[in-house]
């Protein structure tokens, strides 16, 4: 492409030849409504450059016109809103967005248009927008903060706007495993992947870019005697041929976590308008790697001088990328401002593109080597940049002979290179300063990670290939690979010399952090005001806190601080590095787990049957439970629930209670084990009997309750509450494995094995007579209260039958293997039909347990003792059990503890509400007079009023007392009577009938 200045029609700054773009595949796109054309292989940024677009955004604080600064993921300026409608994504880096046909992008943070931005008046007020502006300005009056300041700041803040509607695309998460993870597919990474892969290690090679090669794509060179791009091609071909190597392009490794797990984001379909059907837009990878080699390269840093943020002031390496890789010209008369040898390589790129080099400004003068004949070289610095919103038109250079003005339409700058060492620092590794390259290099990377190539400060191509190869071979060997790695590829070690130049000390706005509009004078102001530590500097000025996380600005900012304080850069140090290295969409972090898949759900064995009947379901933990079963004509949940309660109280009903936790407790010492777990005794429980049990935490507070039956000498069947099934199982395993390993006991969760239904009501026995085989004795004597046995059912089925009651009615629980759960529900409907059988849901279940004064979750709330629940007498005095000792502590047995009590409004028409506080009649409600609160409420169809349970101080001795219920949430206060918690059948006649 030597000397080719012929441009492509419509693309004013596109070269006629060269580059890694496909001129036969034109792509249409629009930016701020203007239609343009690019080529396959372009990024949005390179296509904008090719179309001569320089102004691409407005800065965060001052709304200054900004152009494209870089050609990579470190870009601070060229952020756009990509796509439209629900797929619109704010703050998307144009430099990493691959162009596709029909791409639509909008500039951000400007109104009414990018060229004429109203908020740019902020620039005029810039003296007040200095570092610490927010802290100084919005201090007082305090009440103004919420009403005035915060809303105003929020309106002005931020760059792009989110879509505001649900993202229609899918995301998922996946795991990958390897011996060696290679981060970065440039010269270093390719060399590492080759040596590790040849040795036989399982290798994953990740690169953020759509194609491998890294800087070789932009800078070329000669490797093993061939053109660098040709070498890349053969390296990729070799890697692809190895079955143990997996290449993942468009995949950014954003973090390293404990024990060698990495986070990576694969942009699966960001390069197309929308993902093909059944495919995801992005995929979050968790990569478990035994070893890793990080060849993440280096990031070129800007120089701080007045006007350095004007559009078309660009990183020198970016100019080379646009020219060489994309055949796009950032300018047609390009000046260079560099302080290191690498920056000078830009001269060759510009010359070969057939564009004019306006001048090279270097405070060191011309380098010792290299042919720069015919190039205007000025020993000096850039003191100002002239131009308009559309970019550079002239450059003021300060040199030995005073100031001079140079015409140029683009300024390429290079202040040196910062090794991209973020991954080495995410575990609090502190980088070290190296004077010879004037940069921080990795010092103590996490275990198993090797930094190599430019990321480790080895900036020459030869060194990248050597260190990459060595690191890959070592990582493979450490991971157990036995093969040979072959020889490292060879390239020359070009000289690199640099004279640090951070800040051109002349008057004018000189930017350090382009995205957050932090200037050199902001850094100095922070120092003067005492914010010298880099962490303070960061918070005070917001340096490095924008979406780019200061990739182009952090080191420069702290160097200027070091200079202001008079410390060395090494002593000043860096701020703490934290993942993610690059932005990760929340959608990718959520993956599959959104909307109805937010979490896994559990269905009961009768779920589909209940759904058929129109049941309303409620989430109970992960379970979906039938809450009530509305009948045609019922318009209100209370109507349905009341009907269900009365149907049970007067006839018979059934409810799926399979969600209760169930545990098979077996072994020679099962009884002893349960004696130690429960406060009451189980070893003496007869086979065929059930008993209510209460277990405590070791601190004496109630953990859970449930009914446990003895099915055989060495077999107990425990039930737990639905909510505590998991925690109780974990607790029991702890007791078995840690506390009492001498006991022979084995545990198995049987929750899902059984479909269990509660059948309750005075006609229960009638229903069961119809269901069970005639040989079964279902009389009160034949099947007494708290009895358990296996019964035969008509039609050749066996079921476990437990005579236990939660509702206070004559009741049984019947259990069959889960596969017969639906059949059981249908057969209960048939068997109970003559008796008006009614399925009921969790609401009716709750009403009946409150009427009966049975405690449940709201009372077993992690603050109550057995005594508080009125169950203190259950505790055995003859044995030790978990929680026994501490439950006897003074505070847990104090007479004024809040204990379970019944509560009913004096006005029988009034609705009682949970959470209302109980205070003595005549007292002013408040913390001093508070005596407890309402825990559970229901409308009781049998008492025909709202009533509830509560925890009230001295409650047991105060039955009959009128107190006040105070509900500050609803601003209600009303009289209630404290009473026995057992509202219904206090003698318990019905359940024993």
């Amino acid at each position: 492409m030597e000397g080719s200045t012929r441009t492509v029609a419509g693309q004013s700054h596109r070269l006629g030849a060269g580059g890694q773009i496909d001129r036969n595949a034109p792509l249409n796109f629009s930016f701020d409504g203007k239609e343009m054309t690019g080529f396959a292989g372009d990024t949005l940024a390179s296509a904008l450059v090719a179309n001569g677009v320089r102004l691409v955004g407005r800065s965060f604080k001052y709304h200054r016109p900004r152009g494209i600064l870089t050609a990579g993921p470190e870009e601070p300026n060229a952020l756009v809103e990509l796509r439209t409608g629900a797929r619109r994504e704010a703050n998307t880096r144009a430099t990493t967005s691959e162009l596709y046909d029909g791409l639509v992008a909008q500039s951000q943070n400007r109104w009414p248009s990018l060229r004429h931005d109203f908020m740019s008046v902020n620039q005029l007020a810039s003296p007040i927008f200095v570092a610490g502006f927010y802290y100084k300005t919005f201090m007082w009056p305090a009440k103004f903060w919420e009403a005035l300041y915060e809303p105003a700041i929020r309106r002005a803040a931020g760059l792009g706007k989110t879509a505001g509607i649900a993202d229609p695309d899918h995301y998922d998460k996946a795991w990958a495993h390897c011996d060696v993870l290679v981060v970065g597919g440039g010269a270093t990474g390719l060399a590492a992947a080759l040596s590790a892969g040849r040795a036989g290690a399982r290798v994953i090679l990740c690169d953020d870019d759509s194609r491998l090669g890294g800087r070789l794509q932009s800078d070329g060179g000669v490797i093993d005697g061939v053109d660098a791009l040709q070498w890349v091609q053969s390296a990729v071909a070799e890697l692809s041929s190895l079955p143990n190597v997996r290449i993942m392009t468009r995949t950014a490794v954003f973090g390293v976590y404990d024990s060698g797990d990495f986070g990576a984001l694969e942009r699966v379909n960001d390069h197309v308008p929308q993902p093909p059907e059944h495919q995801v837009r992005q995929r979050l990878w968790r990569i478990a790697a035994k070893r890793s080699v990080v060849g993440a390269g280096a990031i070129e840093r800007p120089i701080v001088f007045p006007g350095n943020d004007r559009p078309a002031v660009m990183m020198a390496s970016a100019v080379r990328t646009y020219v060489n890789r994309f055949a796009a010209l950032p300018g047609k008369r390009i000046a260079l401002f560099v302080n290191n040898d690498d920056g000078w390589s830009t001269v060759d790129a510009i010359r070969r593109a057939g564009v004019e080099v306006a001048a090279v400004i270097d405070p060191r003068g011309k380098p010792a080597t290299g042919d720069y004949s015919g190039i205007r070289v000025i020993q000096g610095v850039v003191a100002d940049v002239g131009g308009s919103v559309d970019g550079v038109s002239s450059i003021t250079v300060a040199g030995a002979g005073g100031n001079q003005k140079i015409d140029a339409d683009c300024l390429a700058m290079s202040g040196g290179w910062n090794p991209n060492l973020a991954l080495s620092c995410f575990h609090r590794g502190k980088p070290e300063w190296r004077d010879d390259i004037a940069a921080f290099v990795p010092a103590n990377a996490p275990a198993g990670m090797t930094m190599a190539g430019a990321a480790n400060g080895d900036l020459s191509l030869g060194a990248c290939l050597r260190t990459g190869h060595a690191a890959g071979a070592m990582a493979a060997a450490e991971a157990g690979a036995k093969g040979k790695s072959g020889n490292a590829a060879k390239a020359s070690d070009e000289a690199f010399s640099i004279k640090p130049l951070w800040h051109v000390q002349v008057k004018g706005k000189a930017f350090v952090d382009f995205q957050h509009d932090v200037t050199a004078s902001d850094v100095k102001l922070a120092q003067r005001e005492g914010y010298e530590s880099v962490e303070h500097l960061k918070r005070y000025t917001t340096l490095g806190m924008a979406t780019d996380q200061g990739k182009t600005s952090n080191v420069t900012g702290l160097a200027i601080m070091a200079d202001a304080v008079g410390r060395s850069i090494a002593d000043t140090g860096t701020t703490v590095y934290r993942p993610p290295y690059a932005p990760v969409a929340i959608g990718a972090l959520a993956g599959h787990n959104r909307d109805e898949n937010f979490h896994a759900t559990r269905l009961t064995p009768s779920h589909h049957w209940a759904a058929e009947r129109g049941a309303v379901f409620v989430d109970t933990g992960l379970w979906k439970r039938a809450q009530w079963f509305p009948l045609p004509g019922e318009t209100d949940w209370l109507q349905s629930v009341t009907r269900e309660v009365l149907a049970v109280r007067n006839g018979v009903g059934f409810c799926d209670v399979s969600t209760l936790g169930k545990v098979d407790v077996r072994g020679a010492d099962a009884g002893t084990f349960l004696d130690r777990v429960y406060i009451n005794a189980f070893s003496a429980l007869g086979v065929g009997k059930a008993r209510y049990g209460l277990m405590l935490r070791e601190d004496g507070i109630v953990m859970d309750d449930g009914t446990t039956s003895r099915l055989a000498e060495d077999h107990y069947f425990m039930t737990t509450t639905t909510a505590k099934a998991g925690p109780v199982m974990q607790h029991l395993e702890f007791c078995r494995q840690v506390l009492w390993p001498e006991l022979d006991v084995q545990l198995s969760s049987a929750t899902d094995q059984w479909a269990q239904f509660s059948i309750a009501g005075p006609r229960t026995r009638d229903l069961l007579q119809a269901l069970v085989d005639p040989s079964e004795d279902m009389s009160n004597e034949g099947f007494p209260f708290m009895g358990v046995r296996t019964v035969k059912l008509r039609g050749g089925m066996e079921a476990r039958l437990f005579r236990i009651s939660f509702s206070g009615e004559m009741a049984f629980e019947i259990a069959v293997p889960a596969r017969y759960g639906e059949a059981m529900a249908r057969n209960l409907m048939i068997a109970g039909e003559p008796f008006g059988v009614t399925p009921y849901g969790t609401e009716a279940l709750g009403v009946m347990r409150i009427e009966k004064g049975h405690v449940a979750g709201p009372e077993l709330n992690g603050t109550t003792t057995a005594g508080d629940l009125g169950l203190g007498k259950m505790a055995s005095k003859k044995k030790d059990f978990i929680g026994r000792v501490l439950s006897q502590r003074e505070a847990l047995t104090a007479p004024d503890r809040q204990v379970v009590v019944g509560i009913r409004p004096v006005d029988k028409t009034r609705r009682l509400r949970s959470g209302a506080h109980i205070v003595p009649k005549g007292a002013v409600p408040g913390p001093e007079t508070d005596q407890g609160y309402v825990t559970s409420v229901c409308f009781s169809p049998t008492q025909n009023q709202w009533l509830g349970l509560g925890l009230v101080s001295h409650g047991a001795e105060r039955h009959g007392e009128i107190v006040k219920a105070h509900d500050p949430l609803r601003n209600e206060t009303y009289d209630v009577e404290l009473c026995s918690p057992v509202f219904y059948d206090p003698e318990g006649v019905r359940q024993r009938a």
Partner: protein
Amino acid sequence: MRIACPFCGARDSGEFTYLGDASPKRPDAPIDGGTAVEDQFYDYVYLRDNVAGLTREYWYHGGGCRSWLIAERSTTTHEFKSVTAAPGAGAAKAKQAGER
């Protein structure tokens, strides 16, 4: 993060639950132990050293083999030095309470 279960091998940390310090030993609790026993239990339930460095702690492989494990972990680096099974994991026969 992966944790090496002695039974299952290295597994994602999401399969494990942390309980806490594995050093305190549940005191024997005679029925008539009085306040001396209460003090011992108070220590057992509440008193913990806040160690910067290696600690012994209980982890539960509930998302896997349901074994209780005792891990030596550094609180400063998260590194697991060792993970061993609780004395009663599996069917190993212990002669007395808490035998390791």
